[in-house]
């Protein structure tokens, strides 16, 4: 069984999504909220592809025999760039002072898609930092609401440390304690949720700039050339 991804044949096993099949074939479809370890979520829409002329999220659409999928077309990459710009302006992303810089999927994807500017007016939201936990830091300024931490904590760690609250543009991540402090949850630095964040929200304390800028994950090769 196979389908066409940008004109190239990609095999798949029935039940796989377009994203899963592409990953197995070593093909890159831009994505942020998807991770092969967790159930698909479909919220960032970076993986938007065109399936036989219709738009869909590659991480949620099932692969079908013979379908024709556009992935890295100019039209789609253009839309993806706009989505990235939306994610940048709705939060506060100052890469020069972010520990995640160089290891950050949002940034790396923006490089891959040649995002030269945030384009839109910034929202400059007022978002907190939570340093209460002895080993972990939460900087909500950079949250892209991908819910990977929500899924990791719930499905892998069995803990439910993270959840979303609010609605619309006021949607925000909360932790599972009435005080709102991470220290008052059962979060441990060894949890899967502690290392799942694709951006610089959930950070290990005192690790900071251990690996020098220039030697980090996406300094070595663009995200599209790395294993997903």
């Amino acid at each position, binding site marked *: 069984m196979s389908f066409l991804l940008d004109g190239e044949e990609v095999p798949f096993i029935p039940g796989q999504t377009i994203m899963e099949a592409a990953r197995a074939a070593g093909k890159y479809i831009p994505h942020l909220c998807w991770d092969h370890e967790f159930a698909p979520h479909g919220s960032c829409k970076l993986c938007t592809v065109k399936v036989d002329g219709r738009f869909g999220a590659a991480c949620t659409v099932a692969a079908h025999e013979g379908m024709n999928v556009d992935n890295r077309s100019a039209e789609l990459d253009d839309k993806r760039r706009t989505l990235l710009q939306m994610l940048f302006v709705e939060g506060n992303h100052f*890469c020069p002072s972010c520990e995640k810089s160089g290891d950050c999927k949002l940034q790396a994807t923006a490089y891959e898609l040649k995002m030269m*500017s*945030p*384009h839109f*007016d910034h929202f400059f939201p*007022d978002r907190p930092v939570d340093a209460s936990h002895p080993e972990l830091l939460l900087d909500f300024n950079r949250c892209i609401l991908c819910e990977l931490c929500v899924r990791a904590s719930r499905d892998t760690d069995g803990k439910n440390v993270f959840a979303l609250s609010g609605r619309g543009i006021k949607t925000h991540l909360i932790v599972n304690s009435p005080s709102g402090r991470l220290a008052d949850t059962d979060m441990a630095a060894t949890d899967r949720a502690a290392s799942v964040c694709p951006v610089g929200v959930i950070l290990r304390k005192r690790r900071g700039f251990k690996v020098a800028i220039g030697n980090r994950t996406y300094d070595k090769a663009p995200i599209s050339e790395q294993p997903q």
Partner: protein
Amino acid sequence: MKSKVKIATTSLAGCFGCHMSLLDIDLRLLDLVQLVDFDRSPINDIKRVGACDVGLIEGGVCNAENIEILRDYRKHCKILVAVGACAVNGGLPAQRNHLDLRDILEEVYQTSPGLAPGSAIPNDPELPLPLNKVHPIHEIVRVDYFVPGCPPPADALWKFLTDLIAGRTPVLGHGLLHYD
């Protein structure tokens, strides 16, 4: 011979780091001056920007004077370029944006410890007034190109300028496009 490209540069709410990076082009700067003339720029002392081909803007917009200068550059430059993180997204200065300016001024000039007694917020008409928020330059004027980075690597600036001067759409590949 083609006429030289006229370039003006300025630093608004920036740290001159981007200008340093421009100077870091080193030897190639000599090649560059074969191709370009510098109008107003911190590297010379021309006081007002004249008609230019390219304006390179470093730094974000944080006060009334920045706005006047930025608009002046926009008016005089055919192509306006945001250079560096601060011009592109406000950078470090914009990290004050979630605070109320009034609280900041009060804290800095009136309530923080160690101030001389009777310290007041300066109201000298010579001083430019700060804006309620710091803005990247594209929120104030139309911007044609962006070269991100803090500062952008010298190689990125070189690649950008040579592309532009040669009439190619500037493209920064892996390693040259950086937000940090």
